[in-house]
């Protein structure tokens, strides 16, 4: 993943794990720049930010200091730092969902407060800056098993992340007249505290520049026995890699890129070109030029053109919908000879053209499982409940069926007046099992149920499992409806057949 879970240490608090960084021109307003940093890989639907960590996005002006084999991007000294902190949770008096607030210290020291999850975000009074922070659908997609370079469905399908979106007036904030090329990184670091005798804070927990610097280049999954240097890399200072560590990382990147080059069995890189690319990678930040167009395909064009000894044509950057993995793999594996398309062409939900530019979070698949152990034999129980159109459930007032066998439709009328329509998808009488899907009547999608009777001791066990996505109703309401239906039905079997001793 782009920088998801990029070190053993980050397994501690997942909410401080930086996953991705984006830099692009606002689709809503070409005069504004958008920077997005994501944390917390595979965040759950109620995820919140850590309240003891600085979340920073840092921009520096960059100078092209060399071309071709001497390609070099030199950062300036001036930093544009956006530093966000988050509060502990605030509970509503009525037990409502807790609230988290955040404050971002902007370049120049001005502070902007916001509420986590507020899609409108917050703006400074003059409108120069606008900020959103909260849970969003993860815009990143990785559709390869990278260790063996095999296409695969998106490994981050339906995942969410916690995002910090910062949008600002490009002219007012970055003053491009002084140079329009910039580099950006994002980092999580400790809030300083008096520690007395106890240890010392790390300068930072995690940071991210270009996608996959850690998980695919420094820690190439195909180099099984190489030491894991990701934690050490995460301790490096962005924009200023320590000279003493440069040879170590340089060697690792040369080994790694050589390995990537040979993944298709062909050597597409000369040693000199590969060394030049490694030197560019060692200065790890996303390059973006605010005077040129940043598109879904312009990621890394600035670096490539410069390595080829030519002026770059685009604004580079990284948009929300950029297919960075395939762009990167194509370059590393075959030096752009042939585009490598992974097993997905977009994230779960593509980015949007309006603030905050990231799609709403994905809901979770829900599972309701109920089971009961009965004194009767499996065949006896199956004889009653194995009929898809059978009326044995106490909450059902009436049931009608259309057709027979797989494809049969049953319309269930519950005693409280609901009508639920379901279709038989599979029937295996030898295994005493059938599965069905719900067509209408419960506010859920992809609702699939499985009923199974198996031998257990001298009696039998019945398991009824339903999986679905809540759709339009809070998950808890749907879950209550489904669980009640299952539980009540199975309890009725205990009364009828007796519980297993």
């Amino acid at each position, binding site marked *: 993943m782009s920088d998801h879970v990029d070190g053993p240490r980050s397994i501690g608090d997942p909410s401080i794990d930086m996953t991705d960084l984006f830099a692009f021109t606002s689709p809503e307003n070409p005069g504004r720049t958008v920077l997005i940093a994501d944390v917390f890989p595979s965040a759950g639907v109620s995820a919140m930010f850590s309240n003891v960590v600085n979340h920073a996005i840092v921009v520096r002006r960059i100078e092209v200091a060399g071309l071709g084999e001497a390609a070099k991007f030199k950062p300036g000294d001036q930093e544009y730092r956006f530093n966000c902190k988050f509060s502990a949770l605030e509970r509503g008096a009525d037990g409502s969902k807790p609230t988290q607030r955040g404050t971002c210290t902007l370049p120049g020291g001005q502070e902007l407060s916001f509420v986590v999850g507020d899609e409108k975000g917050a703006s400074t009074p003059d409108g120069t800056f606008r900020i959103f922070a909260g849970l969003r659908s993860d815009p990143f997609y990785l559709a390869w098993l990278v260790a063996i370079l095999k296409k695969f469905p998106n490994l981050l399908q339906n995942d969410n992340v916690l995002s910090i979106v910062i949008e600002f007036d490009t002219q007012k904030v970055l003053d491009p007249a002084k140079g329009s090329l910039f580099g950006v990184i994002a980092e999580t670091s400790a809030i300083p505290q008096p520690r007395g*005798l106890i240890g010392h*804070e790390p300068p930072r927990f995690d940071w991210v520049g270009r996608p996959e610097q850690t998980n695919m280049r420094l820690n190439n999954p195909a180099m099984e026995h190489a030491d894991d240097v990701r934690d050490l890399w995460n301790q490096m200072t962005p924009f200023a890699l320590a000279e003493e560590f440069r040879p170590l990382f340089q060697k690792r990147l040369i080994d790694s890129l050589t390995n990537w080059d040979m993944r298709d069995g062909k050597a597409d890189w000369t040693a000199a070109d590969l060394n030049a690319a490694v030197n560019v990678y060692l200065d790890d930040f996303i390059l973006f030029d605010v005077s040129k167009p940043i598109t879904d395909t312009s990621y890394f064009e600035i670096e490539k053109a410069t390595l080829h000894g030519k002026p770059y044509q685009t604004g580079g950057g990284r948009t929300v919908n950029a297919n960075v993995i395939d762009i990167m793999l194509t370059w590393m594996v075959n030096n752009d000879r042939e585009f490598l398309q992974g097993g997905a062409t977009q994230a779960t939900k593509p980015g949007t053209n309006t603030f905050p530019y990231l799609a709403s979070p994905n809901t979770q698949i829900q599972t309701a499982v109920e089971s009961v152990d009965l004194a009767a034999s499996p065949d006896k129980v199956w004889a009653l409940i194995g009929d898809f159109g059978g009326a044995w459930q106490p909450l059902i007032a009436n049931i009608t069926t259309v057709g027979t066998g797989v494809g049969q439709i049953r319309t269930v009328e519950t005693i409280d007046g609901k009508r639920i329509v379901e279709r038989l998808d599979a029937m295996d009488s030898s295994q005493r099992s059938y599965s069905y899907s719900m067509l209408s009547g419960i506010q859920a999608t992809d609702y699939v149920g499985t009923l199974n009777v198996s031998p257990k001791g001298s009696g039998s066990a019945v398991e009824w499992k339903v999986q679905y996505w809540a759709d339009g109703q809070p998950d808890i309401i749907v879950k209550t409806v489904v669980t009640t239906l299952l539980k009540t039905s199975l309890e009725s079997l205990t009364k009828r057949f007796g519980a297993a001793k």
Partner: protein
Amino acid sequence: MIDSSVLEMSLPLATAGEIAVMNLESSRQQSWSRLLQSPERPGVAEYIVEQEQMALQFLSDAAALDRLDALVEHLARSDADAVRVTLIRAQVLSTEHHFSPARALLQKTESWGAHSEAADRLLLSIDQACGNNLDFVMEARGRLAAKSGRLEDLVPLGSLLADLREFDEADRVYQQAFTNYQDVSPFALAWVCFQLGALWGELVAEPQPHRAAKWYEQAIAYVPDYVKARVHLSEIYLEDERFDDAEALLLPALSSGDPEVDWRLADVMIAQGKTLEGGAYLETAARGFEALLAKHLLAFADHGAEFYAGSGDNPDRALELASVNLANRSTLRAFEQTYDVAIDAGQSEAASDILAAARLRWGATHAFSLSPLAEMQF
């Protein structure tokens, strides 16, 4: 040794426990969702095991064991790699204290030529939990801790030292775990605090309850939902006759379903003369223990024995459960518990046999010389 009051002034900052628990729970559910959608996704099942173990350890969510069983069944039906599934099964069995089958599975993966660091670490945990090969375990734990310096390697080393009655050294290692900690997860820090509470409150020959209380309080400050820390701290409050404080500590933990909470609430009620309420809580506790024991006997046998040897007031059941635990893992602590409950149950012959077995198993060790069993006569 560094004075504990100095330590408590300067413990590391951590993410608020409320946020961390919310993130753990929603992330755990998200992991299940990911697994059900794409069972082939690498690493998800392993992550679920870690998350369910945390839910069990900190939130006393015993249903985590049922979910882990469901995970194993789910993987068995999938096309997942056999080595990977076997390793996960071994992890789950070990979590449920089915140590022998877990060990057998690890040997099986080894015989397939699938040696892994994860398997080695699990084997170490199993040996440590069973009190086997402790010289080797100590050497390996020391080596791992020296190499990584990480909290997750230091705490098991401290725990082993405490098992071997090297209390000052265990304390030093736990303090080093704080010093070396480079993260903000409150779970890890609460875990160390809990270990220190148990060390000074229960394991040392002359317990220092107030020193232990400070550590339990700190554990709860890190993770307010840490049920076991609340239970242990409530025992100290109860001893001090701080009934309101003990009750206030336990009531929010009732929803966890952990029968130890009901048990300690019963003790608090009875100590105040509220025998009716106390009796009701005791009945709930007994039902809770029996429900857990019916499903996961080995995982809860020692806890059940402790309950029935105490307020549960059923010495025979206590001896039965302690014996189950002892047969499963013949640690010195298991011998001590079983001996004590045998005496309480009036089973002097059984106690004598247990003592003899303890001498045979542990008599030559330094730890045994510090054990109350060393003073006992046949």
